[in-house]
């Protein structure tokens, strides 16, 4: 392990973060030098110094090993979250240390929960910075730099291996170098397309761009206190829903579909499972809401249920309705999709549909094996036979995920929060979803929670974003030797 090399690469990521701070400052400047201009400029300079400093000393290294790769990725996330607090802290207002850290981690991990009572009080520069953290976090800060800094050469391969979910890598049928280009092309393409669509639907350019950043990154920050509900527009909701669902699909598959490749969305088993889950859960919730009389017509129930299901399954977390008043069936179904979430290789968090579907198949294979002990039964996913190690690691991930959520719930409820708030807060943070139930529902925020719970929930956000083991590795001392 060469810490100096790790510093250098984290420094590159700091420079990228600083560039977005500068861009946000330009927005503040363009908006008649609003109050966020000086905080953003100062943050830009400080972050840029932090980024440039190790680059002055440390020479470029063509080869980095797996341990260094892990340290770079995890270190980059932590440092990005840390410097991301600078504009908030310097601006003041509702922000203090815990709120700024919460908002920054929630932004970079694309969770989208807010600890602010009044988002609309923020100046435009700061609102743009807030959305930028989603956009940067969505693709993975490291993945960005791999494309932006083509000089990294062989290093690119190692970092891609670390940053991408192991299941996501299986689905890519391209070389590692091309993966980053595919991700970026799809990411920017979706952002531009959604911005234009939202503008046509009636939003102004600023709101359209901010909401696109949030949607494509499956984040959930909005420029309005009432989130998407503010616009009360079926067109805006439909556009957001379509792009949320698209952002939850493996980016490689979107690219393959658009370029007419064989392994496209329609042939992907996991994508079919993910979209199937969305429709079934959405319709079941609509029936439940209509039956309970929450909304007057079935179409109205369907409109809100489909949007909220899409917002939660893709881990975006936008809101058009208060789900805390929905029926028990609707709540439990939303909790299920909050755990499962969307596909690997997308910007969403959670357990991922791939792992859930693989586990379902493994259970089916196990039952068949018991019926036919001598038979050789293979588990296939998207037509590819899966190794036992892949199945085991998927199952282990699910078990560890649920154990962490349970442990977190115990700690949160021990602080005095009710069970539903505690459980959904930890589950929503782990899945990088955003809204939960209880006092952290779709129409609430996290401002009323104690600083301890705010900081505590950011640990789960980071654990979820780095797929648990990525973050845990960093703290295992044996691993450093």
């Amino acid at each position, binding site marked *: 392990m060469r810490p100096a090399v790790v510093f250098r690469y984290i420094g590159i990521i700091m420079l990228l973060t600083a560039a977005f701070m500068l861009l946000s400052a330009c927005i503040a400047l363009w908006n008649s030098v609003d109050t966020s201009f000086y905080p953003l400029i100062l943050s830009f*300079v400080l972050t840029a110094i932090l980024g440039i400093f190790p680059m002055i000393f440390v020479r470029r290294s063509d080869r980095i090993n797996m341990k260094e790769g892990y340290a770079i990725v995890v270190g980059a996330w932590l440092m990005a979250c840390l410097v991301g607090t600078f504009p908030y802290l310097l601006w003041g207002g509702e922000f203090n240390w815990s709120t700024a850290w919460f908002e920054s981690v929630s932004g970079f991990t694309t969770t989208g929960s807010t600890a602010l009572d009044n988002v609309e009080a923020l100046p435009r520069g700061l609102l743009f910075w807030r959305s930028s953290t989603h956009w940067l976090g969505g693709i993975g800060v490291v993945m960005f730099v791999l494309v932006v800094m083509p000089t990294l050469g062989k290093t690119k391969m190692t970092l891609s291996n670390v940053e991408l979910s192991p299941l996501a890598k299986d689905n890519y049928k391209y070389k590692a170098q091309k993966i980053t280009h595919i991700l970026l092309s799809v990411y920017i393409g979706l952002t531009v397309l959604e911005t234009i669509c939202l503008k046509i639907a009636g939003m102004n350019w600023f709101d359209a761009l901010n909401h696109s950043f949030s949607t494509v990154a499956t984040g959930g920050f909005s420029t309005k206190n009432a989130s998407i509900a503010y616009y009360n527009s079926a067109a805006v909701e439909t556009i957001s829903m379509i792009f949320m669902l698209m952002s939850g699909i493996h980016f490689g598959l979107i690219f393959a579909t658009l370029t007419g490749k064989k392994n496209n969305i329609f042939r992907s088993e996991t994508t079919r499972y993910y979209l199937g889950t969305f429709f079934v859960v959405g319709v079941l919730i609509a029936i439940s809401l209509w039956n309970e009389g929450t909304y007057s017509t079935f179409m109205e129930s369907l409109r809100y249920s489909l949007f909220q299901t899409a917002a939660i399954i893709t881990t975006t977390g936008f809101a058009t309705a208060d789900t805390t008043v929905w029926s028990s069936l609707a709540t439990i179904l939303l909790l299920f999709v909050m755990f499962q979430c969307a596909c690997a290789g997308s910007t969403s968090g959670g357990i991922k549909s791939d792992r859930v579907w693989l586990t379902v198949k493994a259970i089916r294979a196990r039952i068949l094996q018991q019926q036919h002990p001598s038979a050789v039964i293979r588990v296939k996913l998207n037509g590819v036979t899966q190794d036992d190690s892949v199945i085991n690691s998927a199952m282990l991930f699910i078990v560890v995920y649920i154990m962490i959520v349970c442990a977190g719930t115990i700690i949160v409820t021990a602080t005095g929060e009710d069970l539903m708030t505690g459980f959904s807060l930890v589950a929503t943070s782990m899945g990088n979803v955003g809204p939960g139930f209880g006092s952290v529902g779709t129409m609430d925020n996290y401002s009323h929670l104690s600083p301890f719970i705010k900081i505590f929930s950011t640990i789960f956000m980071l654990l979820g974003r780095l797929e648990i083991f990525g973050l845990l590795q960093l703290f295992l001392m044996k691993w450093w030797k």
Partner: protein
Amino acid sequence: MLGFLFLGIMLAFSGMISMFQLNKLSSHTQNLLNNSMKSMELSKDMLDATQEQNTSLLHIVVLGHNQLDSAFTYAGKAFERALNKASNMSGHTLELDLIYRARNDYNRLINDFFSTPGEKDIEWFMEMYGSSYLALTNAIKDYMVASQQSMLQKAESLERNAYRAIMPGIVTLCVAIIIVIMFAFLMDIYYIRPIQDMTNGLTSFLKHKFPYNVEVDGNDEITKLNDQIEELSTLARNRMNE
């Protein structure tokens, strides 16, 4: 060097922001305390004067002590002075208007009392005068409460200013600490350790005639120095062998 220069500039810049904000904070705090003290004193003066007039009038009505007229007039003048001073201070126009209105009603009643001596009895004092007196004292108390409420609002604004004054300094200081730690670490790796290795290599060569074999990774002056020492040691060993 460039990094430290930037950092120095940033620290100076943050310091300037802090100084500016702290200066503003200091003068605002002073003004706030002065205004609060003044409004409290003036409210007290007005309440005292009204109380004084009330006592004098009670004596006149009940006991018929006409010599208390001058005390009544003096208290009335003290009230007017305090009210004028309060009007000259900025803010709370609504509450001051209420005091003026209540005072005018009160004065009208008093004038009526003195223009028709002997007609007004204790019943008039308890009912007519009592309600007017209560309205006046309540208006003064409202003014006091409003002054204190605006103090609270100003204190919140001061708290925000104080936050803005110290935060750039704290954030820049934190960044400076990180950079200093990183600088020490990198200096150790790239300069101190190679020099220590070279010194140890040279010592081994001079004392025990071990071959000088120190590897320094890089492409800077330290690497060049190491290469030259290696060349020199090879030359010296060759000479010694001859």
